[in-house]
């Protein structure tokens, strides 16, 4: 493998190069260890945090923002979006409340408090 990536872990956005075989990947260009982990993950099983909104049923024109508590596999983004779209919530909701459990090994939680 020989792949060029941009690290998306922090705003510095280091340009990374990944070389070698699947179980012996060599990463260069990273300014910190997080970049190495990111590059290896990105080449083996890329993940992303998904953020969206869910309508609050018992409030007029009110949405609560949500996110996956941990990154989920990149290829499942749209499936997770479907699940989030189908979700229903009632206020009051406190930030951190679980909205959907068991979503690709993590949960979808509220990121805003709606009283």
């Amino acid at each position, binding site marked *: 493998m020989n792949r060029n*990536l*941009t690290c998306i872990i922090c*705003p510095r*956005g280091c340009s990374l190069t990944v070389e070698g075989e699947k179980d012996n990947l060599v990463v260069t260009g990273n300014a910190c260890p997080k970049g190495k982990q990111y590059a290896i993950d990105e080449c083996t099983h890329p993940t992303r945090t998904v953020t969206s909104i869910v309508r609050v049923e018992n409030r007029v024109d009110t949405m609560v923002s949500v996110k996956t508590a941990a990154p989920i596999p990149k290829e499942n983004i*749209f499936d997770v*979006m479907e699940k989030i779209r189908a979700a229903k919530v009632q206020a009051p909701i406190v930030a951190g409340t679980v909205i959907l459990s068991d979503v690709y090994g993590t949960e979808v939680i509220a*990121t805003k*408090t709606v009283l």
Partner: protein
Amino acid sequence: MREHDIVVVGGGPAGLAAAIAAYDSGVTDVVVLDRESSVGGILRQCIHNGFGLHKLGRELTGPEYADVYRCEVEKRGIRVYCETTVTGVTADRVVTAQNKEGVLKIKAGAVVLAMGCRERSRGALNISGTRPAGVYSAGTAQKFINCEGYMVGKKVVILGSGDIGLIMARRMTFEGAKVEAVCELMPYSGGLTRNIVQCLEDFGIPLYLSTTVAEIHGKERVEGVTIAQVDENRRVIEETKRYIPCDTLLLSCGLIPENELTRGAGIPIDPITSGALVDENRQTEIPGIFACGNVLQVHDLVDYVSDEAEMAGIGAASFVKNGAVSGKTVETKPGNGVRYVLPQRVHTESGKDVSLFLRVTQPFPKVRFTVKSGDVVLATAQRLKAAPGEMEKITVKSEKLQGAQEPITVSLEVL
């Protein structure tokens, strides 16, 4: 007239961090005024993650980041007045505001301006063609979708590749829209590289550089746009004109600091940053009035907004306790390859290190920045790359500043 030690205008991340820092510096009579129904500013609509890595050491969404600061404000009992619009600030620090109860006049010991910025509107852009529905500024679309749950369109073209445009490209895609293209007038994107990767490349959305929207088509609703490449002088190249059917055009063409109040107070403005001229404590040219956050310079990272706001809060508290900082100052100036330097004036004998914030004029490969006062080098810094979209910070040690007589310039050379 009421009196308060410190009045903070705006309760976005800048205003909240300034209020907390002022309080923690020992001035507890601090009030925050915001025209919206809750604090948090623009972060309330930025539901994506990517906030707080630098400042809080964890990655949060916009609302979560704002909430961290709102809780800290509450913990200290700092009073916040929402739905309260400030209509005037005078040079002798009388703040006039309006809310349901009527007009409020406050004599402030010090004022912190933290009004944020607003988006450049279509009027300021001059695209020819019709004026149908379906043309939104990216931030307005973001507010509609994220706060009100109203989806603005299905087939989208975005003009401008700043961070808001990039974030919205992904957001619209998540909601099932097809983003046909992101067009950028300049030969490079103004957004963070990480946003290009995770908002465009992840979804195969094309980014066309040196390209603009030449015409908007449609009577009632947008039916399509004509995009075209531009030459070095940003003039449309006729032969490259191309029609893209779409029902929505998002404009993400930059932010303008909201400085009406600043001008009203007679505070001098830097023509390049469009924000006030300040010293290293973020004090404007009028003693006792401070500015921070997007109203001072457009930031791409909220973490730096919070840092800057803390400087302003500490500065305001010190002004209330000890009066204006005295001592010699020198100006700072952008040199080769540098668009602006902030603060525009620094005290040389304060005994404190001073961080200079700057943006470069265009993308550069590996560079070295040199900070000089006359012929004396005060600091140097190397970067593997530099781009206008990413603010740089270079710190000058107090012992180097001491005795500096000539204006301080920051310039770069390509290595």
